[in-house]
Structure formats: structure tokens, C-alpha cells
């Protein structure tokens, strides 16, 4: 059994906690949260040991691994603190608010040889994994251009009062929403190296941006567009799409559907010349316990298996999340310029 502790039982934390509670190889050793209401509910109806102070939880519960699902502002200290106690870490995204903080966490995790993972769950979605496979094996030929998009209905009116509306805590569309798309582009097309220009626009929020539009460059040959808006009420929930155009074909992919067009018959097995449409059902393995989407269960399971040394710890590492932090910081700078 892996003893796991959770810091932060908010929206993502509670969801992780439920998955951990159902995981056959996990014992939930402790949960910490500062909200009395949430903690009282957990105390009353679950068997998990609860703490208001996360350091007390680390000290007393002595978890082998810790899930950190608090506002991004607290990641640097809490993750470092837990790693100093030799705990493997699953942190929510984005990794840190500054590039320096992220670098420090990457260094500690590497030095102490701890399993480290960040919650960019798109990499555990079957359609996006297939896109990665197609691109990596060169089936699209030379990549010319890509478009990464995400839209959803988070802020659709002028009203807000939590940490996601506070830029100092890690709020805003860039950190909360666009980070997913940036991370996916880094993973599939290659690391973004330059920002040619950005527009961050607010529609409803007073203190943070509600949308991010950027021109990105991977290399002098490969460039793309980032278009993210969390104030689009025509979407029922967050919807992420990746379009990639190459010399041999084109991909349009979201979490449900993969559409691939090949110019010639020179294409991978299972595909043919012209349009190919495949669905998430073709790429999804069953999970042992389902909550909100297979990808959430799969990423938690992958982390646990990495601790058990059943899989390599090479998806969503601190290192890759740190690169996403760097791109976020580059986008911010591109505005100031």
C-alpha cells in the first residue's frame, strides 16, 4: 500500500481524494484543508484523518506521496516542504507562479530521485495520445503550422470572488485554462521557444484576463496560434482542440474525436488516404474507478504505478510542467513588450 496525503480539498483535491479512496493500492494517510466546512464534512462522513495544518499532516501521517491541490501561489513552498520529507509529489497545474520557483522544484525532485507529476490530464486522453503518436512517427511529414484552442464557460458574468480571480494567487485564464493548451502543444508539436505577440483580454473579470490569444513559434519553420477563452458560454464545459498542418496531412483533434486527413496512401495502419474519423471510444482503456473522465483516473493510477516502479516517471514531469511555466512567463513578457 502506498500511503498518500492530500493538501487542499477544493474542486480538484476532492476529485483526487475520491480516486485515491477507491484505488486498491492506496491508503489515504491524511487530508489537510483550511476550510472548516470542507474538513468537517470529511471528518464526519469519511474515515480519512483530517488536518487543518498541512505540516502537521506531513509530520504525523508520514505519507509516501503527497497530492498538492492548493492555489498555485502555495505550490512552491508546500511541494518543497513535502519533498524534503522524501514524499513523491503529484501537484496540480500550473507548477509554479515563477520560473525560478519551478526550477527549484525540478532540481529537488531530481536530486532526491522522487516521483514527480503535474495534473495536465490531456496527456492521458486517448485521442491526444494518438495525435502524439502520429506526429512523433512523422506521419504528418514536416509540420508547418498548428492551432491550439480551448473554450469554456467559467466566467460568463461580472461576478467573482475566489482565488481564480486573483492574479497573485495564480488566477486568470492564462494560468488556469491556457496552461493546458500550452502544455499539450509542448508535448505534441515540440517545445514553444518564442512568443511573437499576445493579446490578453478581459471580458468580465476585473483583475484577470478572460482570454489569451498568442502567436507562437516552436522553430523558424513551425509556428502556430493559441486561442483560449474561458468566457464562452456556448460551451457546456472546457473544450480543447488541437489542429496541426503538415506536409503529408492534417489533424483536427479534441478530447472526443480525432479527424486526420492524409494526402496520399502513405499513412499508418488503420488509416487511409483522405479523411479518417476516429472516436475516443477507439482509444480509451477502461479504468478501475471512473470519476469525471478516464483521464483523471489514469493520471492518478500512472503516478501510483510510477512509485511502484511499474511505469517510468516520464509523463507530465515537473520538468515538462516547468517548461509550460516558462512559456506562460514568456507570454506575460510579450505583453509588457
Amino acid at each position, binding site marked *: 500500500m502506498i500511503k498518500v496525503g492530500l493538501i487542499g480539498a*477544493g*474542486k480538484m483535491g*476532492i*476529485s483526487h*481524494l*475520491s*480516486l*485515491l*479512496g*477507491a484505488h486498491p493500492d492506496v491508503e489515504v494517510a491524511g487530508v489537510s484543508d483550511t*476550510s*472548516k*466546512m*470542507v474538513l*468537517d*464534512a*470529511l471528518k*464526519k*462522513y*469519511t*474515515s480519512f484523518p483530517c488536518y487543518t495544518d498541512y505540516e502537521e499532516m506531513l509530520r504525523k501521517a508520514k505519507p509516501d506521496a503527497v497530492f498538492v491541490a492548493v492555489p498555485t501561489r502555495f505550490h512552491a513552498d508546500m511541494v518543497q516542504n513535502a519533498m524534503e520529507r522524501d514524499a513523491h509529489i503529484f501537484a496540480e497545474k500550473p507548477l509554479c507562479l515563477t520560473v525560478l520557483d519551478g526550477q527549484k522544484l525540478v532540481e529537488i525532485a531530481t536530486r532526491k530521485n522522487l516521483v514527480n507529476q503535474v495534473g495536465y490530464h490531456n496527456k492521458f486522453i486517448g485521442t491526444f495520445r494518438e495525435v502524439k503518436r502520429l506526429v512523433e512517427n512523422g506521419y504528418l511529414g514536416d509540420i508547418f503550422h498548428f492551432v491550439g484552442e480551448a473554450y469554456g*464557460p*467559467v*466566467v460568463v458574468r461580472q*461576478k*467573482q*470572488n*475566489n*482565488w*481564480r*480571480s486573483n492574479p497573485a494567487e495564480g488566477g486568470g485564464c492564462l494560468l488556469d485554462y491556457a496552461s493546458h493548451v500550452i502544455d499539450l502543444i509542448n508535448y505534441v508539436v515540440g517545445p514553444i521557444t518564442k512568443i511573437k505577440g499576445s493579446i490578453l483580454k478581459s471580458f468580465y473579470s476585473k483583475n484577470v484576463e478572460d482570454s489569451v490569444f498568442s502567436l507562437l513559434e516552436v522553430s523558424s519553420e513551425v509556428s502556430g496560434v493559441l486561442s483560449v477563452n474561458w468566457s464562452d458560454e*456556448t460551451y*457546456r*464545459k472546457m*473544450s480543447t*482542440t488541437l489542429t496541426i498542418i503538415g506536409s503529408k496531412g492534417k489533424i483536427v483533434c*479534441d478530447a*472526443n*474525436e480525432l479527424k486526420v486527413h492524409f494526402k496520399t496512401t502513405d499513412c499508418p495502419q488503420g488509416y487511409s488516404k483522405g479523411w479518417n474519423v476516429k*472516436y*475516443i*471510444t*477507439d482509444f*480509451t482503456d*477502461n*479504468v*478501475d*474507478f*471512473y*470519476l*469525471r473522465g478516464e483521464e483523471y483516473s489514469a493520471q492518478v493510477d500512472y503516478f501510483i504505478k510510477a512509485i511502484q516502479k511499474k511505469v517510468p516517471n516520464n509523463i507530465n514531469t515537473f520538468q515538462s510542467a516547468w517548461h509550460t511555466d516558462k512559456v506562460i512567463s514568456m507570454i506575460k513578457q510579450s505583453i509588457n513588450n
Partner: protein
Amino acid sequence: MERILFGDNQFFAVNHISDEKSRAQAIKFQNDVEIIKTLDYSIDAGVHTFMCTTHDRIATICDYIRSHPAKYEDYKIYPCMPYAHKYANAVTELGIVGTIKEYVPNNFMGSLFKGGVAIMSKDYLSIMELMIDAEMKMFRNIKTPVIFLQNVITDLLLGLGMTEVLVAFHKYIRKKYDTEAGFITMNMPKLLDLLEKAGVENPIICTSINKAGFRMSGGKELYETVLKTRKVRVIAMQVLAGGAIPPKDAIKYICSLPNIESILFGASSRGNINETVSLIHEFDKQYQYDILSNF
């Protein structure tokens, strides 16, 4: 429960395999008249139960049903609560406490917050009951023989081991509404274990069951074993696995399974509704004949 239940995913742009189809459905059903028309197609096909989320727009559909009592005399609705995205988006925007403040009836929260959060912390089940009542308001004077807890909540509580809350939902629905409580889940075998241990016998569980094994946590074989060996009233949903299985194969598989009391499906056109309903009748007849001839 009736053998065939009509679902509402198509009305609210829920499509498990295509965002494009979702948008097309959102456009098609943006007018409530289209929803009512489609419900009437299902009634024409002999389906008299509508299983739907407590989406705001259902309130208007309920108004229409109430104002046409003769036409909908035998019509039943199975409400499924809560409409999760309403709350999920609110939690992202307002946080957990903020969401409760927003959605729990005003007077209650006002008086409780005056008394301090500590008082409230002792009475979560009352909050749940108030939220159920708030969600049920739109269905007044409509027959709701089964009231369901949505899978995102059922499964969240299941993973957390909050058995007491699941049982409290079950008890409250029976006590207050004098109807059956049902649970939607993507983890049917685990949920059944937990409910049975807590003394909930022969529960109504609505869950993904399809030939492709899609969203059948723990695997298709495990589900088939549970259906063969356990006491549970199952409603099969996602029988077409979002469209991944051809309708004929999909329905044939479902009708061949034991212990499935009802089949839930949704469709946007009269043609598709009629096709699915007649396929269910066709294979039901075939398998009943097989069973009888085995005696």
C-alpha cells in the same frame, strides 16, 4: 419501470464522441418547441418516461406538460440531480462554500451564517435535503416515480466512502417524495457492494452497459457477472457507446443480458427514435422466445 426510457442528452448538447455533433444539437434544440416535439415522437413510439437532468430548461418543459394534462396523463419524468455542470462551473468561479451560498435557498443560508459556520457544519444532510427540494420544485404535480442522483456525485461519494450520504439521499427521497431513489454511476459493481452493505436492498442503478465495454469500470465481464448473480434493478445507459457500436449490434447485446429492467436512450429524430424502439422490441421478443424454448 418501463422497459424503454427516453433520455435528454441530445437536448443539452451532451455528445460523448463529437463536439461538432454537440453544437449541431445545441442549435437544433435551442427552441423548447423542438424538445417538446421530440418528446412527442418518443410518446408516439410508446415511450412514456422521460429521464432528465435538472437543467434550467427542463422547468419550461415541465410547465408545458402541466398545462396539457390530458395529453400527458400517463407521462412520467425521472429527474436526475444535480445538473452537474451548473455546479462545477460555479465551484471554479465561486469555490465550494461560495457555490453553496449561491444555490442553497437564501433564508436558510442567511439564518445559518448569522449563527456562524459552526452550526452549519453539523447539518450537512439538511443542506442536501434543501438542495434536493430546490431541484425538485420544477417537477411539482408531475409524476416522478424514480429520482436519481447523478453519476458525478454518486461516484464522488463512492470514492470518498461517504456511504451515509448516499443512504441519506435514498431515505430522504422515499420519505419526502414517496418514490424510489435511484443512482447513476460509472462504477456499478462497486456501488452495488457499498449499497448492499449499507442495507439498501435491490437498488435502482443506472449505468453504462454496452457491447464495446465503454465506461464499464472494472471491465465488461465483471458487469456481466454482477447482472447474472446479484439482485439489482439496472437501467442500461450509453448502450450505443456514444455511437461507436451500430444500433442493431448494440441493442442485440443489451437485450441478451439478464436483469436489465430498462434501457435508456436518447435520439434527435423521429426516425432514430422509432428505429431504436423497434430494435428493442424485436430483440426482446427474440430473447424471450429463446428463454421460453429452453424450458
